[in-house]
């Protein structure tokens, strides 16, 4: 299959999280923060390229918003090109990763960064429909593709 975007711009990965003394202290309750959620999704593989979503600038830490007290996580991701047919799959991979990694109390919103995709509203609506997400994840072929995106290349 021909690649839709043959020569994507590649961005430098963020440095590893700096661990503070408070975070190593088990007596201090650490709230889940933006960086922690970003670290969960930055290494997700792009479905087409041997690169991570972070390296393609599809996800950035500044577009991750976490409110631990309100149990809310919101992610905006930027498809590499405005007609990217993989946008729904990328969003689904982000959603599944967070579904598996975050406590069930969190309400997760995954949306396209406004103005970066031709079918933004349709993709957002599909990603927000948990019934269709649930049905998609019962499809073994699709689940396999999602799991490939979620398999870390670093380990």
């Amino acid at each position, binding site marked *: 299959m021909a690649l839709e975007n043959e020569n994507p711009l590649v961005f430098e990965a963020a440095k590893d999280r700096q661990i503070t003394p408070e975070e190593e202290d088990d007596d201090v309750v650490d709230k889940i923060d933006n960086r922690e959620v970003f670290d969960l999704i930055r290494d997700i593989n792009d479905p087409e390229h041997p690169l991570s979503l972070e390296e393609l600038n599809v996800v950035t830490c500044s577009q991750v918003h976490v409110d631990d007290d309100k149990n809310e996580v919101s992610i905006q991701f930027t498809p590499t090109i405005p007609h990217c047919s993989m946008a729904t799959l990328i969003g689904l991979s982000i959603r599944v990763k967070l579904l598996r990694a975050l406590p*069930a*109390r969190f*309400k997760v919103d995954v949306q396209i960064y406004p103005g970066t995709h031709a079918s933004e509203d349709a993709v957002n*609506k599909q990603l*927000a*429909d*948990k019934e*269709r997400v649930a*049905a998609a994840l*019962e499809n073994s072929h699709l689940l396999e593709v999602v799991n490939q995106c979620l398999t870390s290349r670093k380990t």
Partner: protein
Amino acid sequence: SSATYLSAILHGVMISLQSIAELEAHSDRVWSVSWNPSGTLLASCGGDKTVRLWGKEGENWVCKYRLEDGHQRTVRSVGWSPCGKYLASASFDATTCIWENKDRDFECIATLEGHENEVKCVTWCSNGSLIATCSRDKSVWIWEVDEDAEFECESVLNAHSQDVKMVLWHPTKEIVASASYDNTIKMFKNDGDDWSCFSTLASHESTVWAISFDKTGERLASCSDDKTLKIWQEYLPGNTEGVATVGSDSAWKCVCTLSGQHPRTIYDVKWCSLTDYIATACVDNAIRLFKESDCNTDKNQPSFDLLHTQYQAHTQDVNGLCWNPKIPGLLASASDDSIVKIWQVVEK
């Protein structure tokens, strides 16, 4: 909140929800709950591919039946026949199973096939002679039920342009209403030869997840991904309000939109035929109770008050609700937290 308190005072009644039972048996999210017509058995279904039937033994609610092996995938919805002898279950495996209550057990007697993909809802008409199913394949199917409990497809309706989330029969007439991902509600009737859409209710700005008639069938409540609850009024041909109708069909008009009370998607709405309370199931884990305002009796411009919000009714999204058809104010709820709860409305 103070606004809720004020509207409750104005309404002359303070209400709350008392927890009666927490039913734990499902091993995955519970999508839907449904009471049998006599109000003695509660069916629940969900992501674990099973249907559970709950009933009272002494003072305790227990799981009386576990219906397995009917479906290969999630069971999305369950619906009882009006006689209470049959239960239908709709599944993501594209089939609908019919279960018959035989000799103190439930047996799968038929599997309705034909939808191209996930069946989202199944419902029986008021006299038990017809079943409607709807699917992500955008269609609504009408099935005829004959005396030997044989099921035959009578019509395939392709009026919606997207995934159909719910179908519901009118409480007395042979009219079926459907709610869709295409943001509309449609009404269908048999006009002699075949079934056709006679009305499209357009006002919601996103997916319509659920609809519920009031006891008269002259009004309909709908809830949506657009975070609003809407009330629709039926206008018959020749109505004095001058609402335009076509032929012998009535027109449906949105007469009230309740916005601002739900911070997230509303997955279910149920209008109680015994108490007139409207209950909603929301992604914010809350169950809310509404009732029509006493002080405003104009049916063309009704107002509805939020009388109670049960915050953290569940620990995750509330997906489904059902009012008991015999015991006033007895409400069942289903959630992503895998638990089915039973509540009693308490008026003070």
